[in-house]
């Protein structure tokens, strides 16, 4: 049996950590996905840069695909 809170999280609702301070709450309320920041903080700086590179590669790939599509 899945409880309501878990189901909400499965549906994409962010669970605010009990120790979240005002800045953390403000960033979440502003619209940042703080679960991504939580994940990033578990990585080493080098892993963060590698993750960033993968995101960047994807963005550039999508941008290029869009440009190719527009040129057709």
């Amino acid at each position: 049996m899945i409880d309501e809170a878990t189901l909400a999280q499965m549906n994409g609702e962010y669970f605010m950590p009990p120790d979240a301070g005002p800045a953390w709450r403000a960033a979440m309320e502003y619209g940042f996905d703080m679960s991504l920041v939580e994940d990033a903080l578990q990585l080493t700086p080098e892993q963060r840069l590698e993750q960033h590179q993968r995101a960047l590669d994807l963005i550039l790939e999508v941008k290029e695909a869009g440009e190719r599509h527009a040129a057709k």
Partner: protein
Amino acid sequence: MPQNDKALLSRLKEQKVEFVIIGGVCGVLHGASLVTLDLDICCRFNRENLRRIEAAVKDLHPRHRLTSNKLPFELTAELCGSLKNICLNTDLGVLDCLSAVAGIGDYEQVWKQSVPYSMSYGEFRILNLDALIAAKSAAGRQKDLDAIRLLQAIKEKRGQQKDLF
């Protein structure tokens, strides 16, 4: 044009360029979930260091990306004395080299407010979190103000969990 920050950083390291990582990549290294399309560094703008930067990118077809006719990056003695910033397009992406950072100061000031981060391809210095927040605040663009919200949250979290870096 691909942006390969690791390759650019490795090249700068190989040539012993004196620099501090600033800007968006610095935010990423601190844990911010942002994507940035360039590599910004603050460097000592003396002749020797500028020559090292030149050596790091010379085979990457570097061009002054903000000049209207994309002038090639070719240092002269005169340029070494007059450049304050070098904004380049290279085969490995955009590399912006600044002599100073708004809200912080010149390279010496930036270095004093930086911390070492070790990676498998070398040790690099990046602006500490407070200095990065100050720099973003001084820049004052919407994207900087957005980033500050994240950086403040990370600072707060680090205050709570001392093992985070």
